[in-house]
C-alpha cells in the first residue's frame, strides 16, 4: 500500500479517537438536556472540578489551604497521604453526588417550569461559582493526574502495520495513543449502559417526560427533584470520566473547562437528546476536522479545527435541524 493511503487511514483512525474524547464530554450535556431540557453550561467546569477533586484527594491536599493560610497565617498544604487511584475515584464520585444534591436543593428546585434560557443562565451562574470555588478549594496550579492509565503510542499496532507500506518507503507504522483507546472503550461502555437505562427503564421514561413538560410531569407524580438529582449525579460521574481522560493528557488545569467548546459541535451534530448521537457525532466531527486539517488545512494556513467542527455541524443541521439523532422538533399548530 502506498504510504499516502496509510497516512490518510492513520488520520481517520486518530480522528475517530479524538472524536471519542469529545463524545465523552458531550455525553454529560446530553444526559442533562435529555432529562430536564437544561443546556448545562457548567458541564466543562464540572469536568475540571471533578478532576481537581480527584487529584486533590489522591494527593491528600488540604482543601481551601490558600484561604486558610491567608486568613490564619498557617502553613497547611497536605495531609500527607497518597491514596490508591480507585479509592480516590470513589471518593470523587461521592463528592459529585453531594454536588448534585446541592445543585438541586439550592438552584433547580426554585426554577421549576421556567423557560430553557433561564435554566441555561442558571447553569452559567453555577459555572461561575464553581470556577471560583474549585480554584479556591484546590488552588489553580497545574496538577498531574495519574490514575494508572496507559499513555503513549501503541507499539503493537505500530509493529503490526509497519510492513503494510510498499517496500522502500519510509513508514513507521500506524500510530494510536493508548490513552485514546482506553477512552474509546470507556465511552462505548458508558453509551451502551446509559442508552439502555434511558430507553428501557421507568426512570428513563420519566427523564424524557420531565424534559418535555415540568408541570405535566409533576402532575403525574414524577418527582422532579429526584430525577434531577439522579441525572446530575450521572452527569457528574460522566464529567469525572471526561476530566480524568483529558486531565491525563494535559495535566489538570483551568483550560480543562474549555473542552466543553469541543463538545458543543458534537452535541448539535448528534442531537441534543440522543446518547448514541453523542458518540456518532463525536466520530464524525473527529474524523472530519482531522481530515480537513490534514488535506485542506495546509492550503489555507491551518489551525482550522476550532471552526471547522462548527461549520461541519452547521452543514448537517441545515438538512436535519434536530441533529442526526435528536428528537424531532415538533412543529404544529
Amino acid at each position: 500500500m502506498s504510504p499516502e493511503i496509510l497516512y490518510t487511514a492513520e488520520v481517520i483512525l486518530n480522528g475517530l479517537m479524538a472524536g471519542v474524547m469529545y463524545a465523552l464530554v458531550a455525553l454529560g450535556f446530553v444526559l442533562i438536556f435529555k432529562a430536564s431540557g437544561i443546556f448545562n453550561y457548567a458541564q466543562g467546569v464540572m469536568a475540571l472540578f471533578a478532576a481537581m477533586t480527584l487529584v486533590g484527594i489522591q494527593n491528600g491536599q488540604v482543601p481551601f489551604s490558600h484561604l486558610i493560610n491567608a486568613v490564619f497565617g498557617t502553613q497547611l498544604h497536605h495531609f500527607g497521604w497518597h491514596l490508591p487511584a480507585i479509592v480516590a475515584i470513589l471518593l470523587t464520585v461521592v463528592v459529585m453526588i453531594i454536588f448534585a444534591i446541592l445543585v438541586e436543593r439550592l438552584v433547580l428546585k426554585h426554577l421549576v417550569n421556567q423557560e430553557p434560557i433561564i435554566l441555561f443562565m442558571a447553569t452559567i451562574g453555577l459555572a461561575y461559582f464553581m470556577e471560583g470555588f474549585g480554584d479556591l478549594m484546590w488552588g489553580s496550579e497545574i496538577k498531574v493526574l495519574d490514575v494508572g492509565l496507559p499513555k503513549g503510542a501503541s507499539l503493537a499496532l505500530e509493529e503490526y502495520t509497519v510492513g503494510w507500506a510498499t517496500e522502500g518507503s519510509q513508514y513507521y507504522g500506524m500510530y494510536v495513543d493508548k490513552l485514546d483507546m482506553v477512552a474509546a472503550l470507556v465511552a462505548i461502555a458508558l453509551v451502551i449502559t446509559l442508552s439502555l437505562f434511558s430507553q428501557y427503564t421507568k426512570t428513563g421514561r420519566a427523564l424524557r417526560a420531565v424534559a418535555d413538560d415540568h408541570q405535566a410531569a409533576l402532575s403525574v407524580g414524577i418527582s422532579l427533584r429526584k430525577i434531577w438529582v439522579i441525572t446530575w449525579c450521572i452527569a457528574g460521574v460522566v464529567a469525572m470520566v471526561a476530566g480524568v481522560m483529558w486531565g491525563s493528557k494535559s495535566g489538570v488545569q483551568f483550560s480543562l473547562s474549555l473542552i466543553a467548546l469541543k463538545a458543543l459541535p458534537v452535541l448539535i451534530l448528534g442531537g441534543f437528546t440522543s446518547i448514541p448521537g453523542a458518540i456518532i457525532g463525536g466520530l464524525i466531527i473527529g474524523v472530519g476536522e482531522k481530515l480537513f486539517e490534514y488535506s485542506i488545512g495546509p492550503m489555507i494556513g491551518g489551525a482550522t479545527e476550532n471552526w471547522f467542527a462548527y461549520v461541519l455541524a452547521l452543514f448537517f443541521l441545515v438538512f436535519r435541524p434536530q441533529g442526526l439523532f435528536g428528537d424531532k422538533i415538533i412543529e404544529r399548530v
Partner: protein
Amino acid sequence: MNTAATTSEAAVPEQAEALLEVNNIEVIYNHVILVLKGVSLSVPMGGITAILGGNGAGKTTTLKAISNLLHSERGVVTKGSILYRGTPIDSLSPEALVKRGVIQVMEGRHCFEHLTIEDNLLTGAYTRRDGKAAVKRDLEMVYNYFPRLRDRRKSLAGYTSGGEQQMCAIGRALLANPETILLDEPSMGLAPQLVEEIFENVKRLNEQEGVSFLLAEQNTNIALRYAHYGYILESGRVVMDGAASELRDNADVKEFYLGVSEGAKRSFRNVKHYKRRKRWLS
C-alpha cells in the same frame, strides 16, 4: 356577597364524609395578582363535585392549589388550608399527593410531546408499585375507553390532534389508579359523542371503583347532569353552591350557564347584541 359566602359554608353536605376540604383559600400570583379571594369547598368521599364558572373565575387555580402545582407558576396560597382525609396537604409535593391517590388532569392537555402516546400513558403509572401486569390491564382499559388512542399508539403525542391529546391526558391520569381525580375541562375540544362517553366513564369509575371526582367544567349542561354537587365560582369567590339538581333548576343558572331561557333553548343565531350578564358581585 356575604349571603353567598354563608350559603356556601352552610351547604357542605353532611351525609358523606368529606374526602377533600378546601377552607377559605386565597391565592396570589407573582406576589401581586390576587386571584382566589377565599374559596371553600368540599368533596365528599365517592362523590362527583363540579366547579363551574366563567372564564377567569379561578377554577383552574383552585385545582392547581389543591394539587400543589401553583408553586411552579409563581403562585402561592396565602391563606386558608386544604385537607385531604383530614390531614393538611398544603406542604406536600405533587408527587406525594399522587402517591396518596390524588391526580390532576391539567387544562390544555399538557402531553409529553416527544413521547409516544403509549409512553405518555405509561408515565401515568410512574408511582405505581403493583406490578407490570396490573399496569398492562389498566392500559388495555384505557385503550378500550379511547379506541382512537390504540390506533395512534406509536405516534409522538406532539403530532396527534387536539382531541387525541385530550384523551391521552385523561388516560394518563387513569393509569395512576387514583382515588381522587381532579379533572380540568375534560370536555374541551372533544366531539360530543366522546364527551358523553367520558362522562359515562366518569360515572362508571365513580360507581364501580369508588373514585371521587372534582371537575372544573365549562360545559355546565353535562357537568350538572353527572355531578352530585356543584359550586359556582365567579371572580375568585364561590357565589353559589348546591346539589346538582338544585342548581339545574335555579333560574339564574339556567339563564347564564345552561342557555335556557323561559323554558326553551335559545338559538345562538338570535342572541341579542351585547347582552350582558347580571353579576352576582361587582
